[in-house]
């Protein structure tokens, strides 16, 4: 009976629990806070595979005789304490994490990871709307990226950097402001042709509010921060553009805010950085996908 518990029911239950967590996160869409789109299908496939494995373990008694053998190769399977510890470790951390995990980091983790205010260490990925600095004017062979409405490709427009053309291909909000992501402004700061597209224009973007301690001589700046994910939440890196606002924003640290303002690219500390001169800072609900890719 004891052997059946350890060799059949506990492994089966463990696999079922893992499968439930993976499939729940996938089908509820919560997976978007943890993995970039290309990796999410792996979670579905792994969840289904675990489900099949669990059913085989539970319903086919003949296959569930592992670790009865004295020469079983599983080091933790041969001692009762080892078996109990194994299943506790397999079940408890993922259950606790799944129950209490938020969809975004809090301020402590953001500060511990270090906030980047330029794109020199970032790589362009699919989530951006604009060509990255290494791939725009320098590399005309790069394929164009699709725009939000599927009209003129961004890279094509970047090759003819007239501000009129830029106005046509950059997506606009209903108020007529150019809609950008924080990452777009960081990339633009690295490339003169892209800077021309934005410099002096009124844009709107969203992010999380963070105080600015390093570039804030006048005391009226804050950081507009987003998490930039390469593959999973563990490797997500905080990135931010600076915002100058005549009034202190009426929102708490890490609150989601929409900023409308004019884009400038001052040189500070030998680096060209984007600074938004805000005309409006408004608290908003978090976006559906809190991470940028």
């Amino acid at each position, binding site marked *: 009976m004891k052997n059946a518990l350890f060799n059949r029911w506990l*492994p089966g239950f*463990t696999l079922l629990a893992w499968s439930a967590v*993976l499939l729940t*996160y996938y089908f509820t869409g919560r997976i978007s*806070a*943890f*993995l970039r789109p290309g990796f999410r299908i*792996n979670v579905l*496939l*792994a969840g289904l*595979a*675990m489900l099949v*494995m669990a059913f*085989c*373990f539970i319903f086919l008694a*003949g*296959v569930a*005789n*592992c*670790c009865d*053998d*004295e*020469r*079983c*190769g*599983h*080091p*933790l*399977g*041969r001692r009762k304490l080892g078996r109990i510890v*194994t299943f506790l*470790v397999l079940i408890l951390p*993922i259950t*606790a*994490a*799944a129950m209490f*995990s*938020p*969809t*975004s*980091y*809090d301020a*402590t*983790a953001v*500060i*511990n*990871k*270090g906030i980047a205010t330029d794109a020199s*260490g970032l*790589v362009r990925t699919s989530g951006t709307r604009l060509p990255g*600095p*290494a*791939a725009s004017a320098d590399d005309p062979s790069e394929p164009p990226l699709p725009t939000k409405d599927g009209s003129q490709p961004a890279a094509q427009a970047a090759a003819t950097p007239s501000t009129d053309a830029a106005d046509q291909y950059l997506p606009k909000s209903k108020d007529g402001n150019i809609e950008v992501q924080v990452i777009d402004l960081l990339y633009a700061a690295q490339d003169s042709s892209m800077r021309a597209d934005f410099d002096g224009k009124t844009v709107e973007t969203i992010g999380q509010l963070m105080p600015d301690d390093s570039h804030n001589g006048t005391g009226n700046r804050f950081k507009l921060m987003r998490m930039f994910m*390469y*593959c*999973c*939440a*563990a*490797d997500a*890196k905080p990135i931010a553009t600076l915002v100058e606002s005549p009034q202190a924003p009426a929102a708490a640290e890490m609150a989601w805010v929409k900023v409308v303002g004019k884009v400038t690219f001052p040189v500070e500390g030998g680096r060209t950085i984007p600074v938004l001169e805000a005309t409006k800072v408004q608290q908003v609900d978090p976006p559906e996908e809190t991470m940028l890719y």
Partner: protein
Amino acid sequence: MSWFSFHFSDFALSFLGIIFEGIPFLVLGSLMSGAVEAFVPRESITKWLPKNYAASIVVCALLGLVLPMCECASVVVIRRLIRKGLPLSCAITYMMGAPIVSPVVALSTYVAFRGQNPLEMTLLRMILGFLIAVGVGMAVRDIPADKLLQPEMLDSLPGRRRTGLSMAVAGDDAEMAMAGEGVSGKIFRTIQSATADFLDVTFFFIVGAAIASTFNTAVNQNLLVPLAENPGLSVVVMMGLAFALALCSSTNAFIAVSFRMFPASAKLAFLLFGPVFDTKLFFMYGAVFRRWFVMSLGIGLFIVIALICNHLGLILNI
């Protein structure tokens, strides 16, 4: 700002990120391992290896080019290959080489380092990863298996006396049983072997992921930045980071490149050390190898990679 501040919610987000990214590859590795157990006869494992020892080590170091495997999955697979009779040194060579010498890793490194000598960094990573795998394979050549393997692994090696058929091992009895099985029987055995391997290795993966997530979210990484100014120290710091962060080998180049204040030699050290020895691998290796070997492997790799990258930094001025 204190150097350590733990919040469970941040830990949970990072922990689940690593789990969701890594578990599918562990399942894949387990299923492949199970399929090897059920479908591949022992004699065919060694048939394709060159007779010359050095040549077989070289082949295994390059095997990742045709059988790409991340570091988590490769540990699961080599457990099974060792039980199936693959020479231990060849298995260790594959385990060291596959997470670096692979088309997926080469592509991700090239893309990540665009604008920062991508070809040079990619070639250095591939060539040095290959040489390190060959070096480790050669170094363990004359060490007896009973000095390297955990007793449980050793007992399950082919040719050892066994008391009965176990789903987890492929000794003589299992080989005989396999010969008489139908396809459905083999499929069931694939699943049972995969399940046992998965549960066993996932235990160590979870422990490693928990430690990595604690470091990732609770330790103030800004404190490491001043160390980047010293070339020698920067290499050591980046290798320590690679160990602590336990990132997947196919994606760690994107993180390495974001440490823009560190020299290229330190980033190279990060890219070489992390895929072969990090927190999760420390525990996962422990499921196969004796503790002294795991410790020696880690210390040896650390010293060799640090020396290589320091010298390259001086010679190539990177």
